[in-house]
C-alpha cells in the first residue's frame, strides 16, 4: 500500500473481477444429502454416542462444507474467516458465562427449585405444561 497519488481505488465494475473457481457443486450437494440421510438414520440405532455424533457432528460437517464450498469462505479474503470465527468465539464466551447459572439447577448456596419441579412434573406428562 503505497502513498502514491496514482492509486485511485475505485471500482467501476466490481462484477468484472474476483471470480472464484467454481467446482463441482452437484458433487458437494450429493455428499450433503448422504450426510443428511446418515443424520436421520443414526438416531434410529439408539446408541447415545452415535446419536449425538449423527446429530451434531454431522451438522458441523455439513455447515463447514456449505461455508467452504458454497459460500467460498476458503477463497474469500482471510479476515472474513477471522470475522466469523470471532463471532463464534464471542458466542462461546456468552455461553460460558451464562451456562453456570442457567444450565445447572443447583450451585453454591443456591437452588433452582422451580426448574427441578418443572422437570419432575414434566417427566411424566407429554411435555405439555397445562
Amino acid at each position, binding site marked *: 500500500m503505497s502513498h502514491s497519488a496514482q492509486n485511485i481505488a475505485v471500482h467501476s465494475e466490481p462484477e468484472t473481477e474476483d471470480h472464484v473457481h467454481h467446482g463441482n457443486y452437484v458433487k458437494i450437494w450429493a455428499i450433503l444429502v448422504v450426510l443428511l440421510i446418515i443424520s436421520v438414520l443414526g438416531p434410529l440405532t439408539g446408541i447415545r454416542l452415535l446419536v449425538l455424533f449423527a446429530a451434531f457432528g454431522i451438522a458441523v460437517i455439513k455447515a463447514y462444507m456449505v461455508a467452504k464450498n458454497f459460500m467460498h469462505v476458503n477463497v474469500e479474503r482471510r479476515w472474513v474467516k477471522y470475522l466469523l470465527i470471532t463471532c463464534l468465539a464471542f458466542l462461546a464466551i456468552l455461553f460460558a458465562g451464562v451456562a453456570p447459572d442457567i444450565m445447572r439447577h443447583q450451585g*453454591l*448456596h*443456591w*437452588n*433452582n*427449585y*422451580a*426448574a427441578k419441579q418443572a422437570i419432575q412434573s414434566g417427566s411424566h406428562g407429554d411435555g405439555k405444561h397445562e
Partner: protein
Amino acid sequence: MLERFATGASTYAASIDHLIFLIAVLVGFWFLVAEVALFWLMAKFRRRDGHAPQYVTGEEKHLTKWVTIPHFLVIACDLVIIVPAILVWVNVKQTLPPAQETVRIFSQQWAWSFQQPGPDGILDTADDIRTVGELHVKANTVYHFELQSRDVLHSFSVPVFRLKQDAVPGRTITGWFNATRTGTFDIQCTQMCGMGHGLMAGRIIVETPQQHAAWMKRASSPALAASAALPSDTAAENTKIAEVRR
C-alpha cells in the same frame, strides 16, 4: 471510612469497609496523579509567544516510558485490589460459617416476611414464628438466611450489615450474617420491583439473647402470636397499595 456515612453492624462490615478504604486510597492516588499531570501540562504548555509546539510522535523510547511505566503500575495496583476484593467476597458470599440459627426470608410485592423457628429451634414446625416487615435476631449469632421471592425480583439489603442479595423467584439463595450491634436497622429492597418499590421497607431488630428470648416468648404465645404476625405500618400501607392495583 464508610463508617462515617453508615454504621457497620455485622462481622464482615469492617472487612468490606477496609476494602473500600484500600480502593479509595489506590484509585485516589491515581486520580490525583492524572489530574495533577493534566492541569500541570495545561498550565505549562498554554499558548505563549515565542514557544512553538514540539513535534513528538509518542513513539520515542525516552518518552513512551511516561505511559508504559504507569501502565505497569496500574496493573500492579489492580492486583492489589483484586486479591482482597476476592478474599472479602469469598468470606461474605462463598463460605457459610456453621449456622447457629436459620431464618427464611420471603419477598413479595411489596413486603418482607420472615419465618423463623419457634422455641423448639426447628424450622417448619407448628410453632414457627412468622412476621411481616420485622425480623428479630440475636446479636453475635451466625444466622443463615434462605431467601425466596414469591413474584418478581427483589433484593434483600441491610446497609448496616453491608449485606445485599437479590431474591430470584424460583430459587432459594442462602447467605449469612452475624450482627455485632443491637438496635433497630433498616431493611431495603434494592431491586426495582414495581410500583411499591419505594415502600418496601422492613426493620431488622438485633437483640441481646435475653431480649430475644422475651420477644420469642411473646411472639409464640397463642394469644399474642396473631398480633405479632400483624402487619406493621409499612406492611399495612403496602396492603393498601395492593388494593389499588388496577
